[in-house]
């Protein structure tokens, strides 16, 4: 029995074998997903460095002396809510609602900027107290890891503003929607990395 006769006898198989290539949106999303995973692999190296260097304070201050958990909790809530607002923006884009899209993206942006402001003030405060990145191996690892996440959030905020402008100027075109899909993935992935940051860096780091 040849393959074609099997395909005709089993319902659904004929269509399944003649589907053709995946649409561009699927390929784009998948490619961006691979990029995000490689980004997470890069972060895992920084996490490994931080975990190894956690006790190497060179006589300087340790995490328990430095971290302000109330600030970290506020930062976490900012990022969680901005992730939620980003989800609302994705839904608004799919039902082609310009008003709610721009409102949700603006909320996402404001919460992201609030997060960045708190983080920047924390860094400035640490440096002012003589606990800058050059003080000890522990602080070098801390500034590298948390700073790298902060850089990602800054880049994401710029991308967010670009997307707002593009949707405003060009509308919900297919290519713009693909970029939006990638942006939403990026923003949610940053939130996942922040979960690891506040757990490992701040909560575990101040327990040691």
């Amino acid at each position: 029995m040849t393959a074609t006769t099997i395909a005709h006898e089993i319902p659904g198989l004929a269509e399944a074998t003649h589907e053709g290539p995946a649409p561009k949106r699927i390929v784009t999303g998948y490619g961006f997903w691979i990029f995000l995973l490689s980004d997470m692999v890069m972060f895992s190296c920084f996490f490994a460095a931080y975990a190894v260097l956690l006790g190497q304070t060179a006589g300087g201050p340790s995490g328990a002396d430095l971290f302000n958990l109330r600030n970290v909790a506020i930062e976490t809530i900012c990022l969680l809510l901005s992730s939620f607002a980003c989800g609302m923006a994705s839904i608004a884009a799919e039902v082609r609602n310009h008003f709610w899209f721009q409102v949700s993206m603006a909320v996402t942006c404001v919460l992201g900027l609030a997060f960045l402001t708190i983080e920047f003030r924390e860094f400035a405060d640490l440096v002012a107290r003589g606990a800058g990145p050059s003080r000890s191996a522990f602080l070098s690892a801390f500034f590298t890891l948390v700073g790298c996440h902060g850089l990602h959030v800054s880049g994401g905020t710029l991308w967010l503003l670009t997307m707002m402008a593009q949707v405003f100027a060009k509308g919900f075109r297919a290519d713009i929607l693909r970029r939006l899909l990638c942006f939403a993935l990026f923003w949610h992935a940053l939130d996942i990395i922040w979960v690891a940051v506040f757990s490992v860096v701040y909560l575990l780091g101040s327990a040691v």
Partner: protein
Amino acid sequence: MSDMHDIHQADLAPGDEEQVSVKLRVLGYLIGLGLALLLTATSFFIAGTDLVWQPSIPVAIIVLAIAQMGVHLVFFLHITTGADNTNNVMALAFGLLIVFLVIGGSLWIMANLNHNMMPMDQLMQIQR
């Protein structure tokens, strides 16, 4: 390619959802947000409490973090176990393998080295 019909494709891009009503989707994000806030609050509570056995706290924080990452993956990134999501899940599995190898391997090797290395003051005496 018209994007309106893409939603009905058999494959899902990461971040995609099956087509359901707007209300249900908002509800999905709300459930995700609620669970994430709950897990975050538990983490912060456990880190500062004396109510639980102290040595269990680091393990509890790590378990809660992994659970919260799972919540984010399912409710925000929409990575599910559906047949049309296989590619995304396989890529994620490979990424996780590398992440665990890097973190676990580094901690293991460095702890072993620390354990086997002579204390620094003795090492300095030998060098003199």
